[in-house]
């Protein structure tokens, strides 16, 4: 039984490492910002879950296992919040999702995002474009 758990832990750890590499390659190779965000999600869910689960199998029901579960819970909460803030900030800044009809995106956008939207053909993929005075956002000086 102990050997079985050890083997399972080994499999989980190596699978987590492989998923981390897959996520990293996705972050490096995908075109456009939002598809890269989609790739980085793999690191926060699969890689973290598999590696922390593999470590948890090594210690059994102890305080360390509780801490590992706490790490996974905190990662789940914080990475989703960070991804939400990142996507909102990028949309407000005019970074446009790729491979979609811009009219559909404009119709679906909520009022939370006020930045001016540009068609993808107007700039290179994922280029850095500060707002050029057309922003409706106001800031207290």
């Amino acid at each position, binding site marked *: 039984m102990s050997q079985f758990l050890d083997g399972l*832990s*080994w499999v989980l*750890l*190596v699978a*987590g*490492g492989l998923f*981390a*590499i897959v*996520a*990293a*390659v996705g*972050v*490096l190779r995908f075109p456009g*910002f939002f598809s*890269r*965000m989609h790739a*980085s999600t793999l*690191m*926060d869910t699969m*890689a*973290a879950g598999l*590696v*922390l689960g*593999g*470590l948890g199998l*090594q*210690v059994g029901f102890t305080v*360390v296992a509780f*801490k*590992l579960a*706490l*790490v996974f819970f*905190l*990662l789940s909460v*914080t*990475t989703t*919040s*960070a*991804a939400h*803030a*990142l996507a909102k*900030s*990028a949309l*407000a*800044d005019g*970074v446009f999702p790729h491979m979609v009809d811009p009219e559909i995106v404009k119709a679906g956008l909520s009022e939370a995002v006020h930045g001016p939207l540009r068609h993808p053909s107007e700039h*290179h993929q*994922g*280029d*850095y474009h*500060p*707002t*050029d*005075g*057309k*922003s409706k*956002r*106001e*800031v207290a*000086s």
Partner: protein
Amino acid sequence: MYATAALLLLVAMAITLIRALKGPSVFDRILAVNTFGTATVLMISVVGFMDHRPDLVDIALIYALISFTSTIAALRFVEIDHARRAQEAAEAQGDS
């Protein structure tokens, strides 16, 4: 076993760092650093187990929280910077 997982995570961190260096937009960099932070949390846990010191999980916990805070702080910084630049451009347009 732990060394294998640590090595794979190290490779993943290196690849993520390339994206952080390449950009091209500031959001790509923030995204890459965020992913790098998650990989670092896992790395700290694995290295702690490899060293027979599972207490390092506490440090991983703190690192996860600091990573989240720094991401949000960097995002606020970028947003405020852009909003101020947009406001200045609007004021310059109003003058002319």
